[in-house]
């Protein structure tokens, strides 16, 4: 019986083998090579346990102090202009205001910058930062479509289909209504997530953050589920940015849609 190395069995367990080598290992396993079967099981088990051992605890959000440090919002002297009529806001509110000032600044720069723009090229149909055009499909989805409903979008320019789906609806740290929306390609692979918030004064939506979702780098490795959960990370990061509160229930969301987000 052909022998394979420990490393090959591990690569098989991780979905990292070429098709040819994977077939070789599968043949061995089918032929009843107990030792190899146990090794593959063991490699799968250790990976699963390591993921579980270091999984994120949902009750343990990224520290706001750290976000504050990274964004340098502590040092922002005049965050005013955004929320500012109160004379001595609490520390948390000051931070929130500074955050908004920071975001607003980027929005003003507008066309130039997509917040969190990936360093690679941004495609034409990607989610863009800034006010959402009232006639756009994104505006329609944000205004009318409940969370977890898939909306197909034909891209007139590229001829490719894409999908939009609202992931959740929540209040941000200013008690504005925000919706997290995901852009998927034709095969429903997530591409980008964005947070859009509703401004009561203008009753318009504005995209306040966009994050690209990292994709698996090796398309040949079939059946391999990346452990890093990049999609969840992207969603979570944007929630941290805007200070998302608990997601609204389907009923609450429905009420707001019916009332035009008033």
């Amino acid at each position: 019986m052909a022998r394979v190395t420990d490393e090959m069995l591990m690569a098989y367990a991780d979905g990292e083998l070429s098709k040819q080598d994977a077939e070789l290992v599968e043949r061995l396993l089918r032929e009843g090579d107990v030792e190899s079967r146990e090794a593959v099981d063991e490699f799968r088990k250790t990976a699963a346990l390591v993921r579980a051992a270091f999984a994120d605890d949902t009750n343990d959000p990224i520290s706001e102090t750290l976000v504050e440090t990274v964004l340098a919002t502590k040092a922002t002297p005049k965050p005013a202009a955004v929320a500012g009529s109160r004379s001595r806001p609490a520390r948390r509110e000051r931070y929130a205001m500074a955050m908004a000032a920071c975001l607003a600044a980027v929005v003003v720069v507008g066309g130039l910058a997509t917040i969190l723009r990936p360093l690679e090229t941004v495609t034409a149909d990607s989610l863009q930062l800034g006010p959402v055009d009232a006639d756009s499909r994104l505006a329609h989805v944000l205004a009318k479509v409940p969370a977890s409903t898939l909306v197909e979008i034909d891209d007139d320019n590229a001829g490719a289909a894409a999908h939009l789906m609202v992931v959740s609806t929540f209040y941000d740290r200013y008690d504005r209504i925000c919706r997290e929306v995901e852009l998927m390609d034709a095969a429903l692979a997530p591409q980008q997530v964005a947070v859009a918030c509703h401004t009561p004064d203008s009753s318009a939506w504005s995209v306040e953050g966009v994050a690209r979702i990292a994709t698996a780098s090796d398309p040949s490795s079939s059946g391999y589920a990346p452990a890093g959960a990049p999609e969840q990370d992207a969603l979570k990061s944007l929630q941290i940015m805007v200070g998302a509160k608990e997601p609204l229930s389907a009923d609450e969301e429905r009420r707001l849609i019916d009332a035009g987000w008033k």
Partner: protein
Amino acid sequence: MTIPDHDLRLQIVTLLPRLRRLARALAGTSADGDDLLQTACEKALSRLHQFEVGTRLDRWMFQILKTTHIDRTRQAQRRKHADFTPDLVDVLPFDARIHEQTEAREDLAVIRAAVSHLPEEQREVLALVVLDGLSYRDVADMLDIPQGTVMSRLARARRKLAHALNARQPTGSIDKDTLHGPRH
């Protein structure tokens, strides 16, 4: 071309969940991992201007995380030699003691402790592949080592973890698969 500072800062924020997971795995405990991440972020912020446009921010941040971790480990070792404090590496993470009720949690505690005992180079490869979901090729590029080295380090690390789990089993609770021995 440069990226405005605050664009870069916002991008770092989006990396925080990933970086925290890696930091906790490198440092061994949540508390140490969070300290490590804080220090690494401060270091990154002080040299934002050194980030090269067109390169990967996640890799840059990971390199900083890694060098910060190495610095901290060395400092801790120097302190240890100076103070003759007991070997902290042999103390199980606190998490391990509070979750002893169930077998599954016990397994996780054993895994955390075993990860913290791995040699540095095995732990980082394990964290990048298993926790961050990077391919062997990506990890090899990131660490500038051959892919074969990534694989042998990763395989050795996981063999050690499996060994730690199996070593616990006779005195711990029951795992049917291992009790029944090899399947024929």
